[in-house]
């Protein structure tokens, strides 16, 4: 075969690896019943593809070819090992006796395998940090080094977390299945929480030094899209919408130096309109289902902000109403605080101050810097400089993140005079 077409076939292998390797892996895990065996099989299948496809041409269905080749290699390996080690006879016994043919592999519900993989990686019987690591490793295909860098841990720590999780999956027999309907809400919640934690890990990092962490937000959105394709439940739509609506404002929410810019001061021309439109459309679909939950409501709030031409033109009454609905679904003092801020925008800072004072009197948010920052802000707007100063100082003593501290310091300076 001509050298040029060989080169184009190798480029096609790369492309197929990027697009299909996670799907092939998910199916191999189901067929082989073992994560590590499936990963080895995946790599051997691609090695075989690189050797054979330039000679023989691209197969009609590359994914089915890879699944079949991977399975064949794994079975072959187990058979060879079984000759030396009687324990491997057990692994051999787990494999189906007959060779499935490629047509049969194709007929099976392949998209379901990726869904199986996601639910297994996010199984609540695994520690949360292991769920996150495993999902990024197995579903997204990130390397252990990449995940470790993004979460600011060492690669050995992260690798150990993944090994332990895989061990528990094997020993406790965590199933490789999409959970049945009655278990779905709770299990899906676990999956969505993992995706949202990955997103927040990336989104919270706003300084220039944390480019790899920004990739986490993109990875979470990719996961969100995959979930919407595989399981378009209202909260799945809501979570993707929420992530898109936040991501749309990324470039506007900080200065190049990494200083925070409040929503009301952001340059709205920097917002990604296409992303906002996509997010808003997903919110509408989620809300129309009437089975929406906290993610959809948070997304709806973000959509109202995103669609307002200016901060002053924001429909604060609607935002307060959405916070009321959110509190009914998921009561939390932090949501109450956010609602108080919206009430202050609707009815003035005095109304907001009353709510925050009540909230602080209950004690739950006493050590939460944003509660004191909100209180300080209301007092500043009411011209109560001395009280505002005290509250900003309290907020500063509790704030940890550098950009937030710089912001509070600037505000404190403003009320010093």
């Amino acid at each position, binding site marked *: 075969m001509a050298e040029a077409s060989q080169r184009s076939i190798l480029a096609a292998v790369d492309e197929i690896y990027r697009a299909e390797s996670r799907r092939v892996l998910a199916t191999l895990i189901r067929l082989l019943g073992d994560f590590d065996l499936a990963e080895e099989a995946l790599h051997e299948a691609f090695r075989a593809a690189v050797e054979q496809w330039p000679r023989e041409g691209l197969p009609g269905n590359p994914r089915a070819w890879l699944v079949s080749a991977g399975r064949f290699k794994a079975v072959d390996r187990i058979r060879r090992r079984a000759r030396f080690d009687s324990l491997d006879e057990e692994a051999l016994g787990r494999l189906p006796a007959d060779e499935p043919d490629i047509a049969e592999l194709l007929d099976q519900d392949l998209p379901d395998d990726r869904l199986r993989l996601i639910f297994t990686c996010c199984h609540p*019987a695994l520690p949360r940090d292991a769920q996150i690591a495993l999902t990024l490793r197995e579903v997204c295909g990130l390397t252990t080094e990449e995940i470790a860098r993004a979460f600011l841990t060492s690669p050995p720590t992260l690798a150990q977390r993944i090994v332990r999780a895989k061990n528990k999956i094997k020993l*406790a*027999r*965590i*199933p490789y299945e999409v*959970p049945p309907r009655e*278990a779905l809400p709770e299990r899906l919640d676990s999956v969505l929480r993992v995706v949202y934690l990955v997103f927040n890990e990336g989104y919270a990092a706003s300084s220039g030094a944390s480019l790899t962490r920004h990739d986490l937000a993109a990875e979470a959105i990719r996961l969100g899209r995959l979930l919407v394709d595989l399981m378009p439940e209202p909260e799945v739509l809501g979570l993707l919408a929420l992530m898109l609506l936040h991501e749309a404002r990324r470039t506007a929410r900080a200065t190049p130096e990494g200083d925070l810019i409040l929503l009301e001061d952001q340059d709205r021309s920097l917002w990604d309109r296409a992303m906002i439109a996509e997010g808003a459309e997903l919110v509408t679909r989620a809300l129309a289902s009437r089975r929406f939950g906290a993610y959809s409501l948070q997304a709806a709030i973000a959509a109202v902000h995103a669609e307002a031409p200016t901060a002053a033109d924001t429909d604060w009454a609607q935002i307060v109403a959405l916070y009321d609905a959110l509190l009914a679904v998921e009561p939390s003092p932090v949501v109450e605080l956010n609602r108080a801020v919206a009430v202050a925008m609707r009815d003035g800072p005095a109304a907001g101050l009353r709510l925050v004072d009540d909230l602080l009197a209950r004690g739950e948010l006493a050590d939460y810097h944003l509660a004191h920052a909100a209180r300080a802000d209301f007092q500043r707007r009411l011209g109560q400089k001395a009280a505002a100063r005290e509250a900003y100082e309290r907020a500063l003593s509790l704030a940890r993140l550098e950009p937030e501290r710089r912001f509070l310091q600037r505000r404190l300076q403003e009320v010093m005079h």
Partner: protein
Amino acid sequence: MKYACLVYLQEAEINQMSPSDWLALNLRCAAFGKELAASGHRLGGEALEPTSTATTVRVRNGKVTATDGPFAETKEQLAGFYLIDAKDLDEAIEVASRIPPAQLGSIEIRPVRELPQPPE
């Protein structure tokens, strides 16, 4: 797949139960045992006497020591266990969640390990 379901309870809480509540809980456990047997999940299981009747046995350097009390001081004490058969962890969790004291304390699920057989 076999799983052991170990039942934990706060004995102090149990001791404060009224005699009729205590009897009712015991009757529910007895009924649950029969229910499990009927559905084929039950392989065995017993309630245990309180920790005041417990003895901890230790072996150090080949020397056996028996001491009074449970193996460790925690808020909850082991109150019983079920040995169940479930196809995977999800089914085991489902079964365990139906054990009545799951509502009062916690149930620890551990996969049962098959011991290696000595050579014949």
